[in-house]
């Protein structure tokens, strides 16, 4: 390695965990060999509302190899139910404030009512089918139509973080003075995350100490949640999760199975592995709720918005006021004097919905950006031009300037790459054989949410010049292990191949759960602090070491390259400094404290989405032929992994637009298609090539390295761009997700 290090950040470095992943040697949480492991299989409720009147476990218990059957009758009570607070807060973060099997009540179909533990997976699975349950069933409420007459406006949603109503100006007056009005009701099917790795926890007790291998976006969140639920001191719980097979939000909060695995292991006196089945993944880890949004906007003839009214209706559970915050961004990204956003909820027989990729923005921007397209059409104005006309360089809700934007560049460069210029705006005018061709675009934006408390990392340099940098965060596909290796190498002044990032263990320095695209920003801040702290420590040591060629130099004049400290012509290597002083290693902790209190800036990531579709004129089939996304995510830590995440997000937008739906049977209150054969996600044949343009913008506000994150914004606006393209192709404005063949026949 001869190249210099200062530019390690940003390089399209291969993933550091590429080799273990392609060889099958990466061990995910269900794959850690733990001797004598027993297997737990969960039994879910068949009914959606009512009570368990009897539960006969004798047949199951009598099966060979069955070690225990837990039900509400013998499962120990939890010590305490912690409140629902998003895991970014760095506190306990249960997915809902209801813990199953504490009494005989059934709130939703699939709710855990028994756990069978046996010596093999097959025996547990078989015995689970022998558990006989009798119910007293009441009529469930699950769908919008069943709930819309009994709604309320919550004071706060989203774990208490977001108000149920926001407004500014006078919407009625704003709509009255508009020359043009656009008004539409948008409906959305429920969506499920469906990472390919199902949720899993392996629990192992050593005396009164608990070790969990957990699939989670935050090992610390698991540790804190299980600690509260079981009444166990934090110091007695260790949680590990190095590799996580995707999450998309369903492993962002800590759901009941993690604590259930621990309780099961205590019951049988053996380690227990609890893996959810694919079907259980639809009823045990949250989902994006079914919803309806009503959006009204008014504008002047020259395309200036005068008012936006954005209302949302959705079901929540009997215990939490949850809605994904679909309304936030429509209040912020366009200059518009009058705004009103309201959430309406009704109680339903569902588990509490949860974060799902771009939670709120993906659905809210569909309503907003389809409405903007319709407005452009009404005004005879180019859709990009309409958005530029309503551009704001302050957050329209708070009035605070953006910490950085890049939105205009996203429109311009995205449009250029896509070939938007010269588009004939008339719908239904382009045809290739049987296919109607259309193009559409939409804005993308996603808020930058800093964590609530200090984030920590640790850096250690050995006397041989290699380094280990540590933080608790798991890597669930974001590439965090790779980019943090780069951040650490640059901070320390060593080459990336000398640096190893160690992660996914609560014994390492605490990091809040990597959610809401906040992971890269906060972890890089902590890693940067640790690595540069260690560098400064070593430099200080050198300039005060009489035997160092750098002795007496001013620390500010010292630069480090490839592990060599340089001041003018004098050099001293880290290795020589440490070896000379009989020091086996040197270590530093780093901490980043996010800005506390009010930041006088609006913090948002921006982008622009473009899509081309072909719609079969007779069959109503929609094919997305190409997609272009331009995004301004602040500083890009690794262009390759960033592009991959953005590509994935855009294809999620495709799935949201055309495929993804779980349907509810309103009579039984059960989901109809809880499997990957019938819950459609994009497969290879659905996915066109995707063009991602990265626009780097400097941001000195959000965090030390100016990183705004790429996990979610790829999806935001993509469904709207596709729906707008469908309109352009066919003249049909579909206000429903997913758009299916029936909508276009």
């Amino acid at each position: 390695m001869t190249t210099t290090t200062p530019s390690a950040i940003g390089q399209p470095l291969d993933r550091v965990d590429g080799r273990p992943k392609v060889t099958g040697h990466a061990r995910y949480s269900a794959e850690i060999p733990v001797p004598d492991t027993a297997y737990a299989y969960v039994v879910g409720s068949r009914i959606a509302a009512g009570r368990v009147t009897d539960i006969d476990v004798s047949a199951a218990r009598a099966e060979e190899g069955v070690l225990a059957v837990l039900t509400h009758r013998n499962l120990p009570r939890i010590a305490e139910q912690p409140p629902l607070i998003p895991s970014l807060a760095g506190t306990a973060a249960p997915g809902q404030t209801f813990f199953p099997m504490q009494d005989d009540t059934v709130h939703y179909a699939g709710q855990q009512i028994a756990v069978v533990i046996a010596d093999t997976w097959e025996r547990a699975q078989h015995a689970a089918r022998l558990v006989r349950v009798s119910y007293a069933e009441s009529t469930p409420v699950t769908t919008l139509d069943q709930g819309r007459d009994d709604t309320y406006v919550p004071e706060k949603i989203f774990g208490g973080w977001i108000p149920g109503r926001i407004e500014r100006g006078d919407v009625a007056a704003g709509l009255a003075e508009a020359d043009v009005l656009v008004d539409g009701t948008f409906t959305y099917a429920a969506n499920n995350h469906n990472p390919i790795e199902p949720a899993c926890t392996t629990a192992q007790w050593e005396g009164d100490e608990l070790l969990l291998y957990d699939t989670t976006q935050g090992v610390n969140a698991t540790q804190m949640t299980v600690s509260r639920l079981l009444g166990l001191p934090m110091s007695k719980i260790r949680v590990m999760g190095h590799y996580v097979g995707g999450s998309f939000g369903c492993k962002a909060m800590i759901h009941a199975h993690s604590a259930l695995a621990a309780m099961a292991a205590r019951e049988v006196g053996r380690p227990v592995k609890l893996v959810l089945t694919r079907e259980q993944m639809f009823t045990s880890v949250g989902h994006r709720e079914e919803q309806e949004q009503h959006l009204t906007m008014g504008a002047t003839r020259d395309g200036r918005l005068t008012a936006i009214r954005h209302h949302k209706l959705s079901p929540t559970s009997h215990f939490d006021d949850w809605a994904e915050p679909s309304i936030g961004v429509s209040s912020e990204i366009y200059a518009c004097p009058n705004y009103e956003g309201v959430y309406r909820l009704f109680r339903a027989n569902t588990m509490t919905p949860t974060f799902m990729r771009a939670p709120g923005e993906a659905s809210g921007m569909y309503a907003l950006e389809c409405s903007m397209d319709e407005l452009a059409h009404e005004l005879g104005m180019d859709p990009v031009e309409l958005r530029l006309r309503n551009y704001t360089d302050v957050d329209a809700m708070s009035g605070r300037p953006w910490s950085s934007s890049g939105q205009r560049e996203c429109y311009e460069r995205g449009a250029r790459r896509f070939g938007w210029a010269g588009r004939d705006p008339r719908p239904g005018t382009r045809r290739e054989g049987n296919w109607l061709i259309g193009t559409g675009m939409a804005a993308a934006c996603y808020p930058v949410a800093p964590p609530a408390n200090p984030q920590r990392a640790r850096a250690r340099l050995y006397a041989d010049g290699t380094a280990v940098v540590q933080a608790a965060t798991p890597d669930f596909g974001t590439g965090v292990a790779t980019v943090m290796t780069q951040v650490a190498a640059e901070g320390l002044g060593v080459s990336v191949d000398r640096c190893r990032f160690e992660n996914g263990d609560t014994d390492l320095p605490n990091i809040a759960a990597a959610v809401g695209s906040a992971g890269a920003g906060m972890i890089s801040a902590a890693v940067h602090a640790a690595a540069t702290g260690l560098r400064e420590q070593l430099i200080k040591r050198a300039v005060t070491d009489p035997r160092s060629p750098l002795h007496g130099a001013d620390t500010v004049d010292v630069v480090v390259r490839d592990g060599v400290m340089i001041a003018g012509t004098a050099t001293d290597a880290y290795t020589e400094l440490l070896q000379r002083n009989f020091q086996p290693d040197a270590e530093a902790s780093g901490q980043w404290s996010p800005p506390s209190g009010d930041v006088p800036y609006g913090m948002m990531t921006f982008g622009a989405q473009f899509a081309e579709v072909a719609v079969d004129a007779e069959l109503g089939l929609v094919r997305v032929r190409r997609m272009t996304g331009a995004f301004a995510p602040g500083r890009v830590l690794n262009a390759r992994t960033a592009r991959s995440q953005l590509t994935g997000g855009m294809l999620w937008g495709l799935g949201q637009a055309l495929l993804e739906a779980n349907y509810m049977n309103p009579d039984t209150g059960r989901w109809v298609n809880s499997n990957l054969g019938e819950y459609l996600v994009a497969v290879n044949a659905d996915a066109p090539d995707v063009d991602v343009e990265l626009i780097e913008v400097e941001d000195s506000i959000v965090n030390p390295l100016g990183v705004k994150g790429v996990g979610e914004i790829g999806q935001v606006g993509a469904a709207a761009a596709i729906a707008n393209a469908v309109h352009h192709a066919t003249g049909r404005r579909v206000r429903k997700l997913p758009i299916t063949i029936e909508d276009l026949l």
Partner: protein
Amino acid sequence: MSARGPALTERGAALEERGPGPVRVRLSVNGTEHTLDIEPRVSLLDALRERLDLTGAKKGCDQGTCGACTVWVDGRRVLACLTLAMTCEGREVTTVEGLAGEGELHEMQRAFIAEDAFQCGFCTPGQIMSAVALIEEGHAGNDAEIKEWMSGNICRCAAYPHIRAAIRAVRDRA
């Protein structure tokens, strides 16, 4: 059709003597012989993952819908979750761990790294086993063909364009 009936009946008699309790099953995986005492209902996937500690093949659904468990039996790609382990006796099972020699990488594995054809990596062993077989099957002629014949392997991280790029790279090198 008629050829299958008698063949099944003949083997049926042999199978009846075995099970439903644990039976001795000999499996050859990646060139190594293993002897297992397992119930006949144990899938090839669970035999690999839970008994042989070969966790490269993943369990994404256990229902034949995701492709994460794709391995080869006698060189053909199969879904290990829908295959009973004992039906693989006398056959050669290949998993991602056996694709290349110890410490080496198959060119498809190298291409997956080079093209960043994965994120979380959970679908990846299945994608790679499918991808290598795909080229051998002659189903990688163009992108449309690759798309179709790789659609049994879901990648929820949606690395599809990069997976195609990796397959193209290996195909064009051949």
